[in-house]
């Protein structure tokens, strides 16, 4: 089993290399240089300035050297994530789409495609019909198999929202003086980004996570209805449809309490993660 996994992972390497090679090749085959916009169409830029700029960007190096340099960055997940970079634009667009798409619609599409057409995953419910007869392990796998689609869709929708905040947080943090200090100290860019930048940019995410608890519950109402999963959300929907006011009121209250609990946990986690809040002694 482990040998199989290792083989599969090793098998992925040439594919990944091929992908990077093609993306690099396409970019380099496209006419024009990244410096053109800044230099060539600027009559004030001297020839020397242009050469200096190309040298800075490593464009004076032979192609294979440029590729290896870029590959080195890819391995470190350094896609030049800066405002306006290609990776930034691409993810911004994807995230915007994920953020704007109705989750239940993505769920319907997933059911239609992966469930009905391809028959990879079950389309509804939490168990197979014969789950009573299964052993513990099989039963667990059965539940996981049933949950793959709903969890996958909800993750994508949640991810889109979170990465928006992460992006704006990161952009904000990278403007700070201490980032300039870290760079000026000559720290490697990776260390600046992940240790000095990301750690601070993640702070607001804690709050967002706490605040997103109601969204999760709300999402579960829709998702559990779409996937016929017998959870709290589905119970709420059924209660509303049956005008079962007691259940409705109970669940509305529980939902609100969970939200408050989420906010509290977020505040505590925030204080734990950010010493400045602890030192100030809180509110």
């Amino acid at each position, binding site marked *: 089993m482990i040998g199989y996994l290792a083989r599969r992972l090793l098998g992925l390497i040439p594919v990944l290399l091929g992908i990077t090679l093609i993306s690099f090749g396409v970019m380099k085959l496209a006419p024009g240089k*990244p410096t053109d916009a800044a230099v060539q169409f600027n009559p004030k830029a001297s020839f020397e300035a242009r050469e200096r700029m190309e040298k800075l960007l490593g464009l004076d190096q032979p192609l294979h050297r440029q590729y290896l340099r870029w590959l080195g960055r890819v391995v470190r997940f350094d896609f030049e994530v800066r405002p306006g970079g290609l990776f930034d634009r691409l993810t911004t667009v994807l995230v915007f789409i994920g953020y704007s798409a*109705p989750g239940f619609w993505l769920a319907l599409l997933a059911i239609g495609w992966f469930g009905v057409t391809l028959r990879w995953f079950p389309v509804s419910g939490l168990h197979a019909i014969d789950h009573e007869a299964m052993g513990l392990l099989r039963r667990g796998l059965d539940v996981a198999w049933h949950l793959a689609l709903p969890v996958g869709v909800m993750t994508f929708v949640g991810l889109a929202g979170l990465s928006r905040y992460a992006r704006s947080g990161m952009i904000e943090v990278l403007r700070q003086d201490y980032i300039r200090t870290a760079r000026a100290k000559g720290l490697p*860019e990776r260390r600046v980004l992940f240790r000095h930048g990301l750690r601070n940019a993640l702070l607001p995410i804690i709050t967002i996570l706490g605040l997103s608890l109601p969204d999760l519950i709300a999402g579960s109402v*829709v998702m559990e209805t779409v996937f016929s999963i017998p959870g709290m959300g589905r119970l709420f929907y059924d209660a*509303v449809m049956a005008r079962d006011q007691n259940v409705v009121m109970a669940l509305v209250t529980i939902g609100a309490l969970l*939200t408050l609990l989420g906010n509290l946990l977020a505040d505590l986690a925030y204080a734990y993660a950010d010493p400045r809040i602890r030192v100030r002694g809180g509110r």
Partner: protein
Amino acid sequence: MKKVPGTFPALRSTRYFGNRLAATGAAVLLLLAVIAVCAPWLAPYDPLAVNLPEALLAPSPAHWLGTDPLGRDVLSRLIFGSRISLLIGFIAVGVAVVIGTAVGLLAGYAGGRCDAALMRLVDTMLAFPSIFLLLAVIAILEPNIYNIMAVIGLTSWMGVARLVRAEILSLKERDFVLAARALGASPLRLMVRHLLPNAMGPVLVAATLGVGGAILTESVLSYLGLGVQPPTPSWGNILNEGRVALGIAWWLTLTPGVCILVTVLAFNLLGEGIRDGLARR
């Protein structure tokens, strides 16, 4: 070259890119508004005309986007559905902006106990997962388009209230407000003439993003059967009716979702564009 955010090419391209996206969003919305207004002339069929022999037809030259389980033309229903979505989106947000602005203005200006009480109200409202409130209230009332607009508005004003309050708190200490007060302006005049107009920027952003959110909410409600009631077409209930034919009639699931996605995306892009524009001032 080290990546220094704010160096000239990077920053400039972001702005250009952002502007272009916002302009695209605005163009899409304009087109959508035209479609909604001209729906009766644009729709090739009556969106309510049942024609059972032609049920669940795949897209063809006669029915560009196919037909639904009752043989109704999907394109015509989508075109008329745009009216419902935009109407609900704008009116619900209108309700939210009016309530939110009033609460925020009052809390920020009055301060003290009034402020504390209003902000606890906001906190309380925010504690409820909004879909719970929406579903519960609509089930008690009656799912029709007016109730939906009112309830979406009544459950989404809190963000605006917080924004306005924060703006007012910083504005009311500014010199021009103090000057107006020294000249003897009444509290009402101060609030309406001096404070409010200067606090509207963030509200405009929140409102633009909010319309997209309200349209999403309407589609969820209609999908759950608690929104716009059939036979009136809305993007959400077309999806609901397509559910029974999932896997057979992909056009019933795909097309309304794309409409919602594109519309909400356009509002989000425009809203972010306005925000960037305001931030740059």
